[in-house]
């Protein structure tokens, strides 16, 4: 015994002495081998300077992106993790008569299925909760999810979807927003398709139009577009033994997401944890829950973590898109090109569910007259349900649509009156303390500066065709 201890001590002393010896060479990692750990590199200089505001500081996540080390949700796996897929509606508007998952449940690898009637509170929405997590009993657009399946592999989950039998009774549908406005149109929800409206009224627009030297009228329309974040929506749900659920999610707002989950799952918020990892692009499309309650319930049923990643097809048909606007602009000006009155009617194609329409119609209406001093304004805006993809938040909330209209008309006016487009904007544009269409005193106004500086950089005055 004593001998052994002595040997170990002697060996240790020898090693320690060796380590301190100046001739010991440090181990170098060959430079042709891939690295799996952060490199010991200096920080970008701008990150080290004070004051911090105004520095062109590099992003720490930028370095990780470039190394391929960023962990997006689809890069995360857990032991025994399952994959979920969603079966979507075959009809734009229908009543579900029956759902038979028995064949699907027998498929290899399938451990759980879920339908809308199993969700404790099957509704959500940022303004009003008209959207189901899984549609039941009515589907309102082809992207509505109806049944969810969790299986050991993605392929097994996809295969199982084909075995699910859903019986539908098709209902009358409406696609055209102008048709949806009519009283006799098929209804998507309730008694009317007009689910929100907005009015902005200032001065006396009819009188001012009559007194105008010229009146211009045009209708403008915009199309359905999608955010196309390069990273599709993704989430993972996992429970612990204390009945607490954690969701890793690409959601852009996790505090309110947790509230949505508490509501849909009928659970206290303190038992729910949302982790928002790095998101691969949002642009407004990832600002609401999508699959999270579904995954939480599948995970609970199966007793294993469950991941779901939207396919690119899902991104288009099931996540939200931008509201198409139909915009009627009637503008009265005097001979000098000063706008005296502007009357606007906006019809928003609101898709199958409300989502962020309340915000879009509000912003769209307020911004619709443009950044111009106009004393007489009337904006009437309506959002209608249609049996098409849900329209929601998308970069600008109606601003790109109305800007297309008001700036196109500005050039029409300039052209008709022979006024330079820059000049007519400077003549009408907001300055410090101008009143907005809602009679708010505007401060920190930099419109004319942006006009003159852009014109100068472009060489507007020197332009030769």
């Amino acid at each position, binding site marked *: 015994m004593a001998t052994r201890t002595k040997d170990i001590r002697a060996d240790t002393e020898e090693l320690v002495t060796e380590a301190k010896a100046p001739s010991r060479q440090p181990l170098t990692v060959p430079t042709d081998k891939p690295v799996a750990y952060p490199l010991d590199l200096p920080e970008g200089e701008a990150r080290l300077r004070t004051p911090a505001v105004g520095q062109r500081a590099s992003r720490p996540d930028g370095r990780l992106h*470039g190394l391929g080390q960023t962990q997006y949700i689809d890069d995360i796996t857990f032991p025994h993790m399952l994959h979920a897929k969603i079966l979507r509606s075959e009809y734009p508007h229908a009543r579900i008569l029956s759902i038979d998952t028995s064949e699907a449940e027998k498929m290899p690898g399938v451990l759980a299925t879920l339908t809308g009637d199993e969700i404790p509170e099957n509704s959500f929405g940022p303004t009003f909760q008209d959207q189901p997590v899984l549609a039941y009993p009515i589907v309102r657009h082809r992207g509505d999810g109806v049944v969810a399946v969790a299986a050991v592999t993605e392929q097994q989950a996809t295969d199982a979807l084909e075995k699910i039998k859903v019986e539908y009774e098709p209902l009358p549908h409406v696609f055209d927003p102008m048709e949806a406005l009519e009283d006799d149109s098929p209804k998507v929800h309730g008694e009317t398709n007009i689910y929100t409206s907005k009015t902005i009224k200032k001065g006396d627009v009819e009188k001012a139009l009559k007194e105008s030297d010229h009146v211009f009228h045009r209708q403008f329309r915009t199309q359905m577009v999608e955010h*196309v974040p390069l990273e599709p929506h993704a989430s993972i749900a996992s429970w612990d033994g204390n009945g607490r659920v954690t969701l890793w999610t690409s959601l852009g707002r996790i505090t309110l997401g947790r509230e949505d989950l508490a509501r849909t799952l009928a659970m206290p918020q303190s038992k729910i944890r949302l982790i928002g990892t790095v998101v691969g692009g949002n642009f407004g499309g990832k600002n609401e829950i999508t699959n999270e309650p579904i995954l939480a319930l599948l995970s609970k049923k199966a007793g294993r973590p469950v991941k779901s990643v939207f396919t690119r097809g899902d991104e288009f048909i099931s996540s939200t898109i931008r509201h198409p606007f139909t915009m009627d602009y009637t503008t009265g000006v005097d001979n000098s090109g000063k706008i005296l009155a502007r009357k606007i009617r906006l019809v928003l194609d609101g898709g199958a569910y409300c989502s962020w329409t309340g915000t879009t119609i509000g912003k769209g209406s307020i911004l619709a007259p443009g950044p111009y001093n106009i004393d007489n304004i009337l904006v009437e805006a309506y959002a209608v349900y249609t049996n098409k993809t849900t329209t929601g938040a998308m970069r600008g909330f109606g601003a790109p649509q109305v800007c297309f209209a008001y700036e196109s008309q500005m050039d029409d006016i300039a052209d008709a009156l022979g006024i330079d487009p820059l000049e007519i904007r400077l003549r009408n544009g907001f300055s410090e303390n101008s009143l907005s269409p809602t009679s708010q005193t505007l401060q920190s106004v930099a419109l004319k500066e942006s006009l003159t500086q852009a014109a100068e950089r472009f060489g507007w005055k020197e332009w030769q065709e």
Partner: protein
Amino acid sequence: MLVEINVNGEPRSADVPPETTLLKMLREDMGLTGAKLGCDVGDCGTCTVIVDGVSVNSCLMMAARANGSKVTTIEGLANANELHPLQEKFEEHGALQCGFCGPGMLISAKSLLDKNPEPTVFEVRDALAGNLCRCTGYTKIIEAVMDAGREMRSGQSGA
């Protein structure tokens, strides 16, 4: 089905079902999650890797087809001591925002600079045309690639 490839200088292998794509094998069986799944049909370029010197959409290539090949992924660009000049310049210029297109974009850029060390702006745009980006508008990415090309050439001229 056993597939053997050389990834970033290391021999790796995996036993995968025959319908497995190279992308899936890299991500799920080899732990190399740098290449991304953005569309799975070769439209977006987030899965771009280099196979035997050619940049390819790994979501369109079957793993079996890559058997015996030399594959370079984003994880193979930096080494223990330094970033690849492309990675350095992308960081300096703030060329990546959400970063999801980053690995594919960097691989396509490397593939370009390996063959054409002094590209024009148009040639850079053309080489990156198969890599979609929604965040950046491509401007800083192109600036970073041009800058990396300059750096790589000046490094070589001393050799």
